[in-house]
C-alpha cells in the first residue's frame, strides 16, 4: 500500500503515524490562524476547485475509466458535471449561507438582538467511497470549504487511480496548508480515526460506519454517515405505453446506468404486481438491448473481491433458478451481464444484503399496495422509488414507509437536486448534505444574543419574594397588562399560573 501525502508527486515514501499526525497538525494550525474563515478564502478555494474540474476533465475521465471502466459521458453526468454544478451553486450562494440569520424575540426582551451565526467546526475528516470516487470526495469537500473549515480527505484505496489523482492535483489548485489529501488503506484510516477531529464525514458501508462512529465517540466528534441499503423501486401499472417505456428506461438507467449497479442510490430490486411482471420483464429486456448493445459502455465490477461476492450471491440454487435474463460472467474482464431474477427467495442473501451490482430481482406481489407492508418490514433504505400515477399510493408510500428520500417516476436524479437534503435514516445512515445542507453539515450554528444595559428588570434577582414570583409569572405568559398591574400594585399577586 503506497502511503503518500500532499505535495509528493507520485512519491513512494512511507508516511508512518508521525508523518500523518504532522500533516493533520498543519491543517489545524492553519485553521487556528483564522485563514479559512474569511469569505475571500472560501470563495477563492471554490473558484480554484471549479478551475480544477474544468481544466483537468480529461484526467478525471481517464482515472474513472481506469478505476471503474466508466464511460466519459457517465463520468461527466454523475461526477465531473455534477461537481461543477455543485461548486457553482456554492459560489452563488456562499455569501447568503454565511450571513447570520435574525431571530425574533418577545417584547419583554427589548432591546435585545438575537441571531444565529454560522461558524466552521474546525478540521474535518472526509472518507469517500470507491464507486463515485471523485464525486463522493469532492462534494463533501465543497461543503467543508464553504463552511470555512480545514479538511483532510482520505479517498478510497479501492479506486487507486482517482486517489492518486486527488493527491496529486488538489495541492496544485487548493490551499495545501488547509486542504490535505492522505492516501492509504484501512491502516491509514485507523490511524486517522485515532486523532481528534471536529467532524467526520463518512460514505461507505454500515460495517465500517460503526467503526468510524465508535472511534469518533472517544473524542465526542460528531459524524455524518452516508450508508446504503436496498433501495426498492415500486412499479405500478401505468396506462400509457409511452409512460411504461419511459419508466422502464428510467429504471434501467437507475439500475445499470450509474456505476453499473454499484451505487448507494441505485435501484436494488423491483416490486411489481404479479400480473404485470411478464410485461415489465419484456420491456426491461428491450431497453437493455437498446442501451447496452455492447458491454464496453458499462462500468465494470470494481475488483475481484466484489466480483466474487456477487458471484456468490448466485450460488444459492433457488436464486440461480430464478434467473430469467443474463447471468453470464467474465472474471478476467470483471464483467457480469445485466441479470434479472424473478422472485428469488426472500431470505437469500441477494434479498437481505445490499446487492451493489448488476443483479435486479423482481419481487411480485398480489396487489401493488402490498409493497408498503413489504417495505415496512425491512430496514430503511436510502431512497424508495415509486413509478406510479396513483396519488393514493404515493401518499401511502410517503406517510407509511421510511427512507432517506422518496422519488416518484424517476431514479437517481435526487442526487442532482441541490435544494433537497441528501442522506439516510436508520440503517442507511444519518446526516444530510448537498447544497446548503452541506454548508450546514460542516457548520456550528451559533446563537448570539446581544443585550443592553438600558432596561433592567429588578425582579430577576434574589432575594426572592412572592411579588417577584408573580411578576415573572406574568412575563412568562406574555401577560404584559397583568404584569404592569402587578408591578403598580393594582393587582393582587397571589394566584397560581
Amino acid at each position, binding site marked *: 500500500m503506497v502511503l503518500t501525502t500532499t505535495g509528493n508527486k507520485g512519491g513512494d515514501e512511507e508516511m508512518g503515524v508521525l508523518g500523518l499526525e504532522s500533516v493533520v497538525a498543519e491543517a489545524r494550525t492553519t485553521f487556528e490562524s483564522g485563514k479559512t474563515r474569511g469569505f475571500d478564502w472560501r470563495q477563492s478555494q471554490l473558484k480554484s476547485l471549479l478551475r480544477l474540474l474544468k481544466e483537468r476533465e480529461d484526467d478525471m475521465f481517464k482515472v474513472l475509466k481506469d478505476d471503474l471502466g466508466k464511460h466519459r459521458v457517465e463520468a461527466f453526468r454523475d461526477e465531473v458535471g455534477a461537481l461543477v454544478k455543485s461548486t457553482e451553486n456554492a459560489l452563488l450562494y456562499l455569501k447568503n449561507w454565511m450571513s447570520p440569520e435574525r431571530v425574533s424575540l418577545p417584547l419583554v426582551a427589548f432591546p435585545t438582538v438575537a441571531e444565529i451565526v454560522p461558524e466552521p467546526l474546525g478540521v474535518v475528516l472526509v472518507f469517500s467511497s470507491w464507486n463515485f470516487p471523485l464525486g463522493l470526495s469532492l462534494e463533501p469537500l465543497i461543503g467543508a470549504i464553504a463552511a470555512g473549515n480545514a479538511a483532510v480527505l482520505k479517498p478510497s484505496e479501492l479506486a487507486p487511480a482517482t486517489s492518486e489523482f486527488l493527491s496529486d492535483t488538489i495541492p496544485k489548485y487548493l490551499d495545501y496548508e488547509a486542504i490535505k489529501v492522505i492516501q492509504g488503506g484501512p491502516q491509514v484510516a485507523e490511524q486517522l480515526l485515532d486523532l481528534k477531529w471536529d467532524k467526520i464525514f463518512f460514505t461507505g458501508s454500515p460495517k465500517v460506519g460503526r467503526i468510524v462512529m465508535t472511534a469518533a465517540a472517544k473524542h*465526542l466528534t460528531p459524524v455524518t454517515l452516508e450508508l446504503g441499503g436496498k433501495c426498492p423501486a415500486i412499479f405500478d401499472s401505468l396506462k400509457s405505453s409511452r409512460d411504461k417505456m419511459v419508466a422502464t428506461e428510467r429504471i434501467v438507467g437507475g439500475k445499470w446506468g450509474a456505476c453499473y449497479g454499484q451505487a448507494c442510490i441505485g435501484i436494488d430490486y423491483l416490486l411489481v404486481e404479479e400480473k404485470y411482471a411478464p410485461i415489465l420483464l419484456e420491456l426491461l429486456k428491450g431497453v437493455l438491448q437498446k442501451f447496452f448493445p455492447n458491454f464496453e459502455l458499462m462500468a465494470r465490477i470494481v475488483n475481484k473481491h466484489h466480483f466474487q461476492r456477487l458471484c456468490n450471491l448466485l450460488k444459492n440454487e433457488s436464486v440461480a433458478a430464478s434467473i430469467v435474463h443474463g447471468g453470464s460472467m467474465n472474471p478476467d474482464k470483471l464483467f457480469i451481464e445485466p441479470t434479472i431474477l424473478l422472485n428469488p427467495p426472500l431470505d437469500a442473501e441477494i434479498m437481505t444484503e445490499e446487492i451493489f451490482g448488476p443483479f435486479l430481482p423482481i419481487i411480485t406481489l398480489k396487489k401493488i399496495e402490498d409493497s408498503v407492508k413489504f417495505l415496512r418490514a425491512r430496514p430503511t433504505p436510502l431512497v424508495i422509488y415509486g413509478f406510479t400515477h396513483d396519488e393514493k399510493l404515493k401518499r401511502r408510500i410517503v406517510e407509511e414507509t421510511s427512507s432517506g428520500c422518496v422519488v416518484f417516476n424517476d431514479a437517481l436524479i435526487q442526487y442532482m437536486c441541490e435544494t433537497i437534503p441528501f442522506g439516510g435514516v436508520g440503517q442507511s445512515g444519518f446526516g444530510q448534505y448537498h447544497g446548503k445542507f452541506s454548508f450546514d453539515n460542516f457548520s456550528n450554528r451559533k446563537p448570539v444574543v446581544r443585550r443592553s444595559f438600558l432596561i433592567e428588570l429588578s425582579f430577576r434577582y434574589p432575594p426572592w419574594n412572592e411579588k417577584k414570583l408573580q411578576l415573572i409569572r406574568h412575563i412568562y405568559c406574555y401577560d404584559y397588562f397583568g404584569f404592569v398591574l402587578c408591578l403598580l400594585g393594582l393587582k393582587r399577586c397571589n394566584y397560581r399560573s
Partner: protein
Amino acid sequence: MTGEVFDGKKAEVMVKDLRASFKAGKTKPYEWRVSQLEGIVRMIMERETEIMEALQSDLAKPNMEAYLHEISLSKAACLFALKQLKGWIKPEKVVRASFTTFPSSAKIVPEPLGVVLIISAWNYPFSLLIDPAIGAIAAGNAVVVKPSEIAPATSAFFAEHLPEYVDNSCIKVVEGSIAETTALLEQKWDKIFYTGNGRVGRIVMAAAAKHLTPVALELGGKSPVIVDSNVNLKVAVKRMAVGKWGCNNGQACIAPDYIITTKSFAPKLVDALKSTLEEFYGEDPLESADLSRIVSFSHFKRLTELLDEENIPEKIVYGGERDEKHLKIAPTVLLDVPHDSLIMKDEIFGPLLPIITVEKLEDSFELINSRPKPLAAYLFSKNKKLEEDFVQKVSAGGILINDAALHVTNPHLPFGGVGDSGTGAYHGKFSFDTFSHKKAVLSRGYATEMRIRARYPPYTYHKQILLRRVIDGSFIALFLGLFGLHRD
C-alpha cells in the same frame, strides 16, 4: 420500585413493545401528539407543588428557581409546541427544485425517527427530561425517559405521575442508575438524547455506534465570562451573579464558570461582586433560603477539594464557607488562581467563581480558544469592536453579550454545544427537528421526457454536449443543443 431488576431482557421487551406501538402508527397522528403534550401541561399545572417539593428535596432548590427554570420553562415549551405543531408537521415545499431535474416538484416531509431514548441530568431534573420529551413527542416518536438517579425525588415523581397523564403504551419511564442505563444503552434506538457530562457522553455515543444510532449530546464545559471595564458594573455584576449562583448555585451547564478581566479592573469587579452577593444572599449565605445546596456528598467533596488545593485558599477573596452536614457551600470568589490549578481544569459546576486577569482583554480570546469549546461564552462590554471580535473568534454552543444564562429561554434559538460541549441542538422547533428525519420527496412526470434522451446509453458525443448544457443550467444553450446547433 417493584424490587425487580430492570435488566437487558426487560429493556429488550420494552423496546420491542414500543416499536410495535410505533409501527402500528399510534404516535403519528396530530391528535395523539396534542393529547400527550396537553397531558404534560396538565401534569405541570396540577402537580406544581409536588414538583417544587421534589426539587426542594433533591437540590434544596429555592421555589423561585424551581418555578423560573423548571416549571415555567417546561410549561412554556409545551404550550409553544402545541401552538406551532401544525406548522412543524406540514411538509415544506421546496421552491426551486432544480433546472436540471425540471420539471419536478419537491418537498421536505418531516417524519418521526421511531423509538427514542432520553437520558437526563440531575441539576434541572424536571425540565431536562420534559424539554427533550416534548420534542420527541411533537415529532411523533415513542419515547423512553430515564431520569437521573442523583435527583431521586424528581425521578420518583416521574415514575409515579407521568404515566397518569400520557399514553403508557408509547411513553415509558425507567428509573435506575448504571445497571439500568447500561441495559437501555444495549438496545437499538432510533435516537439517543443525552444530557450530562463528557465521560458518560462518550459511553453513550460508543453504545449508539453499535446500532448506527444518531445521538444528541448536551454536555457542558467551562463557560467563560469576559468583563470589560466600560460596562455598567452594578447591572453587569447582578446579571453575572444571578446567572451563576441563581442557577442552582452554579450547578448549571451554562452557568458562568470563570471570569477573565484586566488586572487593573479586577479590584473594582471583586468589590462589586462582594456587595451584590451580600445583597442577594445576606451576610450569612449558608443560611439563605435562596441558594440551592450541593446535590450530593461526592460533588461536595469534589468542590471542596478544588478550594483546598495547595496555594488556592489564599486566592479566595470572598466566601469559602461550607456546611458539610447540609451540603452547602457559600458563593465563593477567587482571584488570580494559577491557570493549571484544578479549579481551572474541569467544569466547576458549583458556587466557585475564579477570576483570571490579563493585561488586555484581547488576550483572553486565546486563553478561551486554547481550551475545549464551552456550551456558552459571555462578554460584558460596550466596545462594539471587541464584541464583534468575540462573536467571530470564540467558538461556543451559544454567545450572550451583556448578560448571562438568559439565552436558553428563547425557543427561537437552538440550544446545544459544539466540540466537547456536545452535538445537536434543541428548544422550540429545534427540538422537533432533532427528533425528526427530514425526508425529501421528489416528483416527476413522464410528459417532458426529452427526445434526445441524453441521460441514457449508448453515449454519443452529441448527448455529452447536451448533458453539459442541462447540467450547466443554461436554457439557451440547451435550446440550441436540442436542435443540434452548437455554440462551442
